[in-house]
């Protein structure tokens, strides 16, 4: 039996196709302003028996018969529980949202916290700041890792953080140092969210931002809990959706 999970996120659309529990295929495209057709493109050529959609745009998918939807919070918990069964707490930082999730047996969501409408401390924030410092976002983490500590960005708001970054630049701070400070602010914010779900070890870190080496290392240093990062952290929700699909009757 083939189960398809599709995660329509704010920045990227991801899918995972499972056959009898094995990952057969994983794909990913940018969301763009036309997520519905991007998703359709992404699914082209695939065959499946059951399908579950998740993510910010989970309602945009119309057509596939038997389509079910679940939230990215549940999907993420299911995906992580399969990839890292030991994980008790999850930090998921995606394109527009940060979530802290306490998970129980079999990926059951015990509690969760999620950021409010603003994109402070999310992938979008990093993307925005990387653009401001003229560094490709994929390299932003490595770039920041070479920064010297000492500079701080205290504002959580994207616009104010940029103002702070600009004034640090005016004080002659290096771009790398500022980048490090920006990464720090992302981690600080996630820590306070984590604290609210009562984090228990080990902690799994996933979502697109878990690909960022600097956020990973700062988090590891500050969280005080063993940190697990799945091999494809950005695929966790898509895989979780596929697992939910696998549990459905075709």
């Amino acid at each position, binding site marked *: 039996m083939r189960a398809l999970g599709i995660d329509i996120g704010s920045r990227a659309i991801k899918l995972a196709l499972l056959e009898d529990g094995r990952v057969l295929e994983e794909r990913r495209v940018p969301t763009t302003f036309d997520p519905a057709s991007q998703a359709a493109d992404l699914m082209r050529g695939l065959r499946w028996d059951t399908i579950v959609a998740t993510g*910010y745009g989970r309602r945009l998918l119309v057509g596939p018969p038997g389509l079910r939807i*679940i*939230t*990215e*919070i*549940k999907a993420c918990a299911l995906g992580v529980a399969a990839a890292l069964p030991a994980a008790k707490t999850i930090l998921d930082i995606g394109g527009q*949202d940060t979530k802290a999730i306490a998970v129980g047996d079999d990926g*059951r*969501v*015990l*509690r*969760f916290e*999620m950021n*409010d*409408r603003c994109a402070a401390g999310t992938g979008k924030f990093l993307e925005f700041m990387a653009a401001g410092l003229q560094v490709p976002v994929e390299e932003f983490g490595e770039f920041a890792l070479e920064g010297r500590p000492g500079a701080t960005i205290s504002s959580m708001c994207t616009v104010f953080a940029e103002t702070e970054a600009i004034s640090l630049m005016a004080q002659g701070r290096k771009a790398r140092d500022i980048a490090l400070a920006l990464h720090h602010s992302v981690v600080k914010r996630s820590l306070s969210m984590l604290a609210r779900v009562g984090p228990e070890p080990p902690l799994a870190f996933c979502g697109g931002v878990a690909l960022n080496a600097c956020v990973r290392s700062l988090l590891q240093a500050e969280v005080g809990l063993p940190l697990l990062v799945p091999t494809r952290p950005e695929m966790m929700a898509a895989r979780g959706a596929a697992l939910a699909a696998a549990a459905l009757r075709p």
Partner: protein
Amino acid sequence: MPAEAVDYRTMWADLGLDLEKHDMLLGVLGQAYETLFLSQKSRPKGMDYFNFVMSEVHGLRVKELRDAQAAGRKVLGAFCVFAPEEIVTAVDGILVGLCTGADFATEEVEKRIPRNTCALIKSAFGFTLGRVCPYIETVDMVVGENTCDGKKKAYETLGTILPNLYVMDLPQVKSANGRSLLRAEYERFLHAVEDLAGVKVTADRLRKGIRAVNAKRQALHRLARVRAADPAPISGLDALLVNQVAFYDDTARFTSSVNALCDELAARAARGEGVFAKGTPRILVSGCPMAVPNWKLPWIVEGAGAVIVGEESCVGERGARNLVKEDGADVGALLDNIVDRYLQVDCAVFTPNPDRLAHVKEMHTAYRADGVIHYCLHFCQPYLMESYPVAANLEAAGIPTLRIETDYGQEDGEQLRTRVEAFLERLR
């Protein structure tokens, strides 16, 4: 709504409303009402009355108030459940709640009060400054109550815009001192109302006032109780609407309409009929008041497949739950009874406030809720501060709780929906 509205244009113009903006407001309101309320499935017949009231909220009801004024009665407006309706009723006056559930004239508002003010307070200013609220323009007196710091300080500014603002002080601690403050303030209010109406309050008048308001509250208690049935015989949206209408409809007419609705709901429950399937997740909403037309959260919750079975809120059970004792030989004794009742309102401005948590738990059990959604307006310190210990306590007692912080804007709808859906996934 718009069809009948045409007839009231002269009245609105007389009141000094900004007709153009007012048309806009009514348009939006009517639209929202249609999509949110009228589209619901298997609504009780008894809701027809409330639909009618809503359709006439700026029309017939305002005309009634103006007619009452022409006949010599006084009309007062209030922003909080601490304005004692019993006293107003005792001088044959009418007390209406002023709606504060939508943003209006935000730019004008932010010239006078900080942007970081809760939406409820901003809304009061918006409706005043935008000249779109026929109630504010109609009332002979607006009663402000010193509750949270935001309101307290806002009244200083609102007083410069509204010449008829009367501010009442309130205790923050339910001690003997707190009680005597409330007693003194209610007595001062009683005299202010006597002066306004030119009527002397007697024990008989006050007792009649108490009885009328008690009857209204009893009807609301009944409504709260019939919602305990599974399947729920009425949607949370409709029940919220009834609780909202309680603030401005004629007391006696409202009471009998709620009782009629309850008869129907009880019959439904007896037949095992409901608006949602049996076993639908049941949610208790607790927190900041939801004034008309703030329907965002209930709409999202019920759209996500749950049913709201109670509101621990001032527009809801916190505001309506206790009754005033009707015995007492003189005005002084009755006033004591009134003070006793109001002092039980467990608003978050009180410190400490353990009764509120106990009440949430009690409602959770009585209405067989599966989880609690704690609702807060941005920048509402009292309720936001309480949300942490309340949520922690509920979770510790095994009651799943979701904290929501939002305002009257619609931009966060999708994020709220995700949270609510994830919370429901947790309950299933």
